[in-house]
């Protein structure tokens, strides 16, 4: 296997004067940055101005050229770079230039259809967790065989889109007609074959555009043409070794792509050291668009999508695709994003308590892991829709499901994170929401912390709805400070603020009591009464369900002033003596404290 260039190899060729003109402290530091591709050779001014460094500069340029040379298609802001890769496996360094997605149009499409398709390609946009996915280029195919018709089609594409182009025809006359219209856009031309290579090569030279060399299934011929082109001084080449789909054919495709990339990267084959073109659109070849059924179209779009993803993993630097359905493009676009993520960046975020929006002391507390992807998903899903605290637990940068299974997210680790964040001081309630995928930790976490643990949705997309529709104190009995069978019993609503603004001060004042929570679905007593949802019957049923009668010997129920008007109804339906206390929680604490059973 060929070794990657080392900083020392580069350093030896640099001036060695440590002049700092490049912006780095030393030539060695600059050499290191060059290897990491974080600095450009041009930053070393002496290399380019002092003639005595000329031979060293040339050697450096050679040394720093990646084994798969970069090729630029298009001009200006929309230009795309393909190739420029140094490794076969992303974990060895990183992949640099994400596979370009080019969508096809052809010159016999009705004009309105063509323009609509071109616009859809150019405006295609999917936003996903802070990332925007777009399509990168348009491949114009000549199906008419007519240069004038092709030129007209290219003109319409150019007029309606700023995206880089690929002009596709095996007829040099057709290509030239297209180039005349689109030459200012620096399109990629497809393709030079063993039959037309001279003419197409001349077009590449004349218009100074990158050119695809095509030899389906035949690497030897591919190399022959590339060799001739390189001898002729053609500087930007893309390889099309053929994309084949079907039994055995797919295996051939992967073999050929892999062999070419290995030859370029590990065997130093310069003729094969160019970007690879994959053509998932071949799944549609031989089909007649007009007679295809909906079901056939879906199956082909499905297969084309899979072929895109496989080619991305097997070294394709640019793809020509026919399908424009989002459902079909979404998977390979996402997979491309994944594969081209820099593996040198650790996937963890700093653990600790974070703000989502503008939380206050009554805002809910959500728990998650410190895997960057999960963290950003949660943030993205909640911000703007709810204000909350996010407690990020250190799971070693792995996701919730694996962290629970692997023992890095446990009741103890969450409890520890709560303590470190000083959560008891940050919020006035004692409710915490764990991810649905960590549901099994609920019991242990309640035991470890004494907090009420709510199990949130399995997918963070559901958090805002969860907070609206099911985040409140569960109906039931809650004991404060190990109450005895003679401790007072107080009724509260299930509203987080109303409930905990009594319960927490009671505990802090060291008052033993039972709190019965009436199921008001998060409403305060006042709201629930206004909505006609509180009655003597409702309270009686609540007491029955909670089984409070089995926990205390007495039959005395303390309610807040909100229930003053309903007190006698409650007393008659429950058979309990009802004591009306103050509305304000702090006064209620004293009331309960001094309450005589």
């Amino acid at each position, binding site marked *: 296997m060929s070794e990657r260039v080392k900083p020392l190899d580069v350093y030896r060729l640099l001036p060695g004067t440590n002049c700092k003109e490049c912006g780095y402290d030393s030539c060695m530091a600059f050499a290191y940055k060059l290897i990491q591709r974080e600095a450009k050779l041009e930053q070393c001014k002496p290399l380019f101005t002092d003639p005595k460094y000329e031979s060293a500069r040339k050697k450096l340029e050679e040394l720093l050229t990646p084994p798969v040379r970069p090729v630029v298609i298009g001009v200006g802001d929309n230009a795309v770079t393909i190739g420029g890769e140094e490794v076969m496996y992303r974990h060895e360094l990183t992949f640099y230039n994400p596979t370009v997605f080019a969508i096809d149009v052809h010159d016999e499409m009705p004009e309105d259809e063509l323009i609509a398709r071109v616009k859809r390609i150019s405006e295609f946009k999917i936003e996903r967790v802070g990332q925007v996915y777009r399509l990168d280029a348009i491949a114009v195919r000549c199906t008419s065989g007519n240069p004038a018709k092709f030129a007209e089609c290219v003109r319409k594409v150019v007029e309606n889109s700023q995206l880089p182009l690929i002009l596709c025809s095996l007829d040099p006359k057709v290509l030239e007609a297209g180039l005349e219209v689109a030459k200012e856009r620096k399109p990629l031309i497809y393709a030079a074959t063993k039959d037309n290579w001279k003419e197409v090569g001349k077009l590449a030279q004349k218009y*100074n555009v990158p050119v695809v060399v095509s030899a389906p*299934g035949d690497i030897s011929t591919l190399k022959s043409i590339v060799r001739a082109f390189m001898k002729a001084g053609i500087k930007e080449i893309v390889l099309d070794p053929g994309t084949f789909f079907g039994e*055995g054919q797919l295996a051939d495709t992967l073999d050929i792509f892999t062999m070419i990339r290995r030859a370029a990267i590990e065997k130093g084959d310069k003729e094969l050291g160019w970007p690879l073109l994959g053509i998932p659109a071949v799944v549609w070849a031989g089909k007649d668009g007009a007679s295809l059924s909906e079901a056939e179209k879906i199956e082909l779009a499905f297969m084309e999508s899979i072929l895109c993803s496989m080619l991305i993993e097997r070294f394709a630097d640019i793809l020509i695709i026919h399908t424009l359905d989002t459902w*079909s493009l979404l998977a390979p676009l996402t997979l491309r994003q994944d594969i081209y993520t820099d593996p040198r960046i650790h996937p963890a975020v700093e653990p600790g308590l974070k703000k989502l929006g503008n939380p206050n002391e009554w805002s809910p507390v959500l728990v998650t892991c410190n895997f960057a992807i999960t963290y950003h998903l949660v943030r993205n899903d909640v911000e703007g829709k709810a204000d909350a605290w996010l407690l990020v637990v250190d799971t070693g940068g792995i996701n919730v499901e694996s962290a629970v299974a692997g023992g890095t997210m446990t009741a103890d680790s969450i409890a520890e994170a709560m303590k470190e964040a000083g959560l008891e001081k940050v919020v006035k309630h004692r409710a915490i929401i764990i991810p649905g995928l960590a549901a099994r930790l609920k019991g242990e976490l309640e035991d470890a912390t004494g907090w009420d643990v709510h199990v949130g949705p399995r997918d963070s997309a559901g958090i805002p709805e969860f907070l609206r529709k099911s985040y409140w104190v569960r109906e039931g009995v809650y004991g404060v400070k190990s109450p005895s069978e003679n401790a007072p019993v107080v009724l509260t609503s299930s509203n987080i603020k109303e409930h905990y603004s009594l319960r927490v001060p009671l505990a802090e004042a060291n008052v033993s009591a039972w709190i019965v929570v009436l199921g008001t679905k998060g409403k305060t007593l006042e709201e629930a009464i206004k909505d006609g949802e509180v009655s003597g019957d409702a309270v009686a049923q609540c007491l029955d369900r909670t089984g409070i009668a089995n926990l205390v010997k007495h039959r005395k129920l303390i309610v807040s002033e909100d229930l003053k008007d309903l007190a006698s109804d409650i007393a008659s339906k429950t058979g309990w003596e009802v004591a009306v206390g103050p509305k304000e929680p702090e006064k209620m604490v004293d009331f309960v404290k001094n309450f005589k059973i």
Partner: protein
Amino acid sequence: MSGEEEIRRLGKTILEILEKFGELELENVEIEAEELVLNILPTLARPPAAPGVSLEELTLETVPFEIPREEFPGEIVEVQIGATKSEGGSRKKVIKIGGEKAPPFYRFDYPMKNKPVVSMDVFDYPIRLPKPIRQHFEDVLEDPIAWAKKALEFEPDLITLHLISTSPEYGDKSPKEAAKLVEEIYQQIKDVPIIIGGSGDNKKDPLVLEAAAEVIEGERTALSTASLANDYARIARAAVEYGHNVIALSFIDFPGAKELNNRLMGEGLPKDRIIMDPTSAAVGYGYQYAFSVFERIRLAALKGEELLQMPISGGITNAWAAREAWLSQKKAPEWGPPEYRGPLWEATTGIGLMLAGCDLLMMLHPAAVKIVKTIRDFLISDKKAEVSMFYNWVSMKV
């Protein structure tokens, strides 16, 4: 004016000469060089196409291409799942995975000895499934044996029974009860091997898997899973005692995977009784970490790392953690129908990881299973590419 025109014409001629010979010799031409430059600049301004030989003078040389084969010192062990009657089990068919001598599907290095296999998941509890999957199993969710039979209609290579009802979350069934179901499913379904999985509860799984291992002694199932977070030793010992394999679960953790294999072997479990699950992730949800840990493990094994020379298993079902797989069209109209999106997401995740080294794919959606098997078979076949038809894509009218 006429002088300028002449020079322009000359410029044009020069261009033609340039095209023909690639070099320009200005002999017997008496004009001011500056003027010439000025006039031909508009077309010549781009970087010169050169120094090079004229294309006209070149012919295609025959350039032999030598296949860049790589010989790897390491080899993946072959693991057999299931045992026939003569081998002490009751399966009509057994599965072999592993045996690779080259990176996945690098046929030019070595053809794959065994093809990757697809297992379909069956649960012993009516677990909440995304709608695109649920609709295929609606009538069998309460009955794991009926579920398994239904799954077999979709022709997976094998099936996996997940005993999730043993989890405290889903009913907390005892190991003994779970083992009874295992015994029953093995009696009722004999066509394919059946992998036995726990609930993922670290305390309960070793007990459940041990009880299951005992009642199907000699069947050479795979016990799923042992990890550094549970009592892996107990599971390994049960596998040794009752003649089974173990699936070793690590969490996107290269050294952790190695460590676990080492410890399992330390309990007396032979190397060819271990399958690794380095943890899968859905495309878009950390897929790249799974992809790279699979690739790293496989390459290290081929380069000679003995503690990693085991086949790899992947929970491809994890693809359904992606909301792109299941979110309804109502909630995500721009993404298109989940009926296609869902199985495509699972198939993409599965095929992607298969190319990274996954030998055993645990899956859920029937269509995804079908696609993955089709692609797998495409990749195994020796049929040659039909080169002559290739350029049809350029002129197709779709």
